[in-house]
């Protein structure tokens, strides 16, 4: 019974948060514009662009835009709304909701970034299916770490500055894996190695999700 009530509340919250995100369309539009400006500047500067540079730039831009997006959805919240969530929702439900909405948003942004880069900088990826798998596994990794980090930097004297300082080193293991995986997609060779990296990614995501379930209630308390 308790679980059912919890699940209902979490689902209601998910719907609410998703609605709030879509109503504040300028927020997502900000992230999209970030990507347009970034890719456009890069195609002016990186010319001609090799496949390795394409991939590196893709992940760097995705890293920056995810920091921007996640921190905005958290730190940009008004104090009143924040307080309302705090008293009405348990930390774990909030955590799962944030991971789900964040992941959905990042899937959109990562796909959009790939399309933009394909348009302006060419499309060197040989194995698109594998690239989609990489995006699918990469987004939750970025979102879990950054959501925890942004919740941690709330109340700090320089929250916006703390985000990258704390986030970069925590994201390195995941980014290395994601980069390896997409390098395989770039070369389009056999899938022998894919399962090793994809398995490691799934493991990392599960570990981060579980850590959030354990740690988020402590960040939530005030």
């Amino acid at each position, binding site marked *: 019974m308790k679980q059912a009530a919890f699940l209902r509340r979490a689902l209601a919250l998910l719907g609410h948060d998703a609605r709030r995100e879509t109503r504040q369309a300028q927020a997502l539009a900000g992230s999209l514009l970030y990507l347009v400006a970034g890719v456009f500047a890069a195609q002016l500067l990186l010319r001609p662009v090799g496949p390795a540079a394409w991939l590196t730039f893709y992940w760097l831009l995705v890293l920056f835009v995810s920091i921007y997006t996640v921190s905005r959805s958290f730190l940009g919240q008004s104090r009143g709304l924040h307080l309302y969530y705090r008293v009405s929702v348990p930390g774990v439900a909030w955590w799962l909701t944030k991971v789900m909405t964040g992941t959905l948003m990042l899937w959109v942004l990562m796909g959009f970034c790939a399309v933009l880069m394909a348009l302006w900088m060419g499309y060197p990826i040989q194995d698109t299916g594998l690239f989609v798998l990489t995006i699918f596994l990469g987004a939750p990794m970025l979102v879990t770490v950054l959501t925890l980090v942004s919740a*941690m930097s709330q109340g700090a004297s320089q929250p916006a500055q703390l985000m990258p300082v704390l986030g970069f080193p925590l994201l*390195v293991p995941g980014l290395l894996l994601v980069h390896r995986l997409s390098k395989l997609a770039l070369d389009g060779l056999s899938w022998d190695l894919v399962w090793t990296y994809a398995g490691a990614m799934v493991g990392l995501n599960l570990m981060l999700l579980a*850590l959030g379930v354990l740690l988020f209630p402590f960040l939530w308390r005030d």
Partner: protein
Amino acid sequence: MNAPLAPKSLHPAIKWMAVLLLFYSFLMGWLGDVPRKVILNESVRNLYFHVPMWFGMLLMLLGSAVYSVRYLLFQQFTDDTQAHSLGLVGLLFGFLGLVTGMVWAQFTWGAWWSGDPKQNASAVGLLLYLAYMVLRSSFEDAQRRARMAAVYNVLAFFCLIPLLFILPRLTDSLHPGNGGNPGFSAYDLDGRMRWVFYPAVLGWTLTGWWLANLWARYRTLTSRAPLPLSKS
């Protein structure tokens, strides 16, 4: 509000053991007999200095994470101070481990820095804990700082594990024990090196524990600055 209690001083036996073990490991580390190996030559002695740094670092950081978990469960400031001090000593050991490794790499691999997976992973590991220190310094409120730092510390330790143990195994590394290079067990055919290596690990770990304890005690005393120190 009660002033936080300073952690107890370590038992003198532990301090004496640390001193004696380090003395022994330095003496035997420089003067003892070591196997003659091509390329490695006398640099194999780095095993007595470089590797204990990593063992020490990992144990310090593990201790730090354990104290952070304790802080989250019981909200005692002593635990936060202990976690902070152990983190600092872990960072010191990590830095020394990186430097001793680079000096060794200069003579065996031919470059101070060759972007080896082990080197990269340890550099990122240091960044993780430097960020922990930055996080600590950016909160005014002591309770909030302690709580946020504890959460970050646990997260950082869990991110350090895949970084140090899993990722370097996915690629080739020149580091002993990786990618077909002989590891520790290959060098000590008759177990001679073990008699110096394990005491060195223990000695450095105890020294680190001692350092962290001193630092934690110092921090606690200075944090209640208005009181005269002699009345503790």
